[in-house]
């Protein structure tokens, strides 16, 4: 398992060398709470998920650099890292934006410690992102080894559980709650039953595990014992449904603005469908107020609409979404969030026109292809449906956003000298 260290922060540092020695944090969508922290920020006591307003003082006193999340940048850097990692091994499973499992089973003649040193050095040199590496016989143990590398072997950033003794050392040094796949509730339950470390869990009787943690838990315990039991996913699975929703930057009551926002979400959803060559049979729309504002009247509604034929073009998805909104919108509330989920996806090469459906599918398909091509070349939303007006009125709060250094020709990092 290779994991990028404080990934979002590392991306920000890459294009802003003045941050090299400053603590850095990156906030979640809408500038909510800290989701990535450098080591310096961690040691200042900034916990994961702390809302920004609770740490204003700390930020000022310690000169902490704060960023809004710049997902466009992180996604590009992530792709560079992943493709680089993939060149070292025969198989790889990308687990998240900053983590990947590398399959080293076929490399039994290679010195894996040497290989991981090379991987770490190469990603740092070529992309500029620091990573940690954990090597072990199973995915669950590799994830643990990675964590162990970060905690106990900070200098090298590598932990190779090469022998049973090293695996045992790691199991004993890892609490049950920190095992990959053990949720909060299970962790509490296990603790109350006397399981403190991962080692205790690995030694638990099979029957007991099966009874209390089901088959899934048993698979996990088997992995802790060094027997691979969790499937690898070398090819990312197609998603079964796709959600696009955003909170508004401020509360919004105006239906026109909500309609625009939903139009944009629907178009983005349709684009994701086309990207994975799927088409949707159902569209689900939801609208909600802010449940944390107890002084406001609350409203939460959602509706699912069937599409006459499976589709993935902007016009059909937007039309269905707006119809849904018409049905659930009630005036007089301060809305916080609107979203769309497209469901019951089918492959789009099997599309058939309904007998009396007016749309000519081939023409529609080539139209969307043209729209996608233009938008790819000339920038997002150059060509769009009438309802997708500018984003400004409802855009997320992102007061500390850095630039799209690697994807926008007008936002390149600059070399400035008078």
């Amino acid at each position, binding site marked *: 398992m290779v994991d990028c260290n404080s990934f979002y922060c590392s991306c920000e540092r890459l294009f802003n060398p003045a941050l*090299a020695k400053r603590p850095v944090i990156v906030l979640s969508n809408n500038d909510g709470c800290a989701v990535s922290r450098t080591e310096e920020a961690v040691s200042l006591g900034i916990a994961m998920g702390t809302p920004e307003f609770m740490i204003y003082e700390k930020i000022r006193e310690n000169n902490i650099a704060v960023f809004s999340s710049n997902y466009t940048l992180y996604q590009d850097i992530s792709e*560079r890292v992943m493709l680089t990692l993939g060149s070292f091994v025969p198989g790889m499973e990308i687990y998240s934006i900053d983590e990947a499992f590398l399959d080293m089973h076929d490399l039994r003649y290679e010195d894996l410690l040497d290989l991981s040193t090379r991987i770490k050095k190469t990603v740092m040199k070529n992309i500029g992102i620091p990573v940690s590496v954990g090597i072990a016989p199973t995915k669950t143990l590799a994830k643990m080894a990675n964590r162990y590398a970060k905690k106990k072997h900070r200098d090298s950033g590598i932990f190779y559980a090469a022998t049973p003794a090293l695996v045992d050392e790691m199991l004993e040094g890892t609490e049950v709650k920190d095992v990959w796949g053990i949720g909060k509730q299970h962790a509490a339950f296990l603790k109350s039953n006397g399981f403190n470390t991962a080692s205790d869990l690995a030694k638990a009787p099979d029957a007991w595990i099966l009874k209390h943690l089901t088959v899934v838990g048993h698979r996990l315990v088997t992995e802790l014992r060094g027997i691979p039991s969790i499937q690898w996913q070398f090819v990312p699975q197609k998603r079964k449904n796709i959600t696009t929703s955003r909170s508004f930057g401020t509360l919004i009551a105006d239906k026109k603005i909500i309609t625009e926002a939903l139009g944009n979400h629907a178009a983005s959803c349709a684009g994701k469908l086309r990207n994975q060559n799927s088409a949707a049979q159902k569209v689900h729309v939801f609208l909600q107020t802010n449940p944390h504002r107890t002084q406001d009247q609350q409203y939460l509604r959602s509706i699912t609409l069937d599409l006459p034929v499976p589709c993935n073009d902007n016009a059909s998805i937007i039309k269905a979404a707006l119809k849904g909104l018409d049905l659930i919108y009630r005036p007089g509330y301060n809305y916080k969030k609107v979203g769309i989920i497209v469901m019951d996806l089918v492959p789009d090469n099997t599309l058939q026109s309904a007998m009396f459906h007016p749309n000519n599918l081939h023409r529609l398909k080539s139209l969307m292809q043209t729209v996608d091509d233009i938008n790819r070349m000339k920038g997002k939303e150059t060509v769009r449906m009438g309802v997708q007006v500018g984003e400004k009125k409802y855009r997320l709060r992102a007061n500390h956003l850095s630039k799209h250094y690697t994807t926008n020709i007008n936002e*390149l990092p600059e*070399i400035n*000298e008078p």
Partner: protein
Amino acid sequence: MRRKRKVMGFPSPARDYQQERLDWNKLITNHPLSTFYFRCNSDAMIEAAIVRGAILAVDRSVSPRNGDIVVASVEGKFTVRYLQRNEYKSKLIAANKKYADIIMNSDVTVFGVVVSVVMQMR
């Protein structure tokens, strides 16, 4: 079922000589994954024909050699300079007399090597 043979013209005599058309993407950098682009708003390399407004393709994967043009961070800011290095020390040197040499120390880090310069004219 027998098909009629398609009627075709005389095959192009140039076909055997066809080569792939030049592709700027490949000429600008050999390593797109490790190449980052910078905007040069500096006249420090004016005598090396790098003018203000130029786009620099900077490859991190190639190892900098003596005489390469590099992008480096100096006291928290990006600069572009010649890298001059010998056994004893390394220096960053501008191609413009206005700028003093920069001695390499722990506050100076080479970001990558400039492998191409692009100037967009319109």
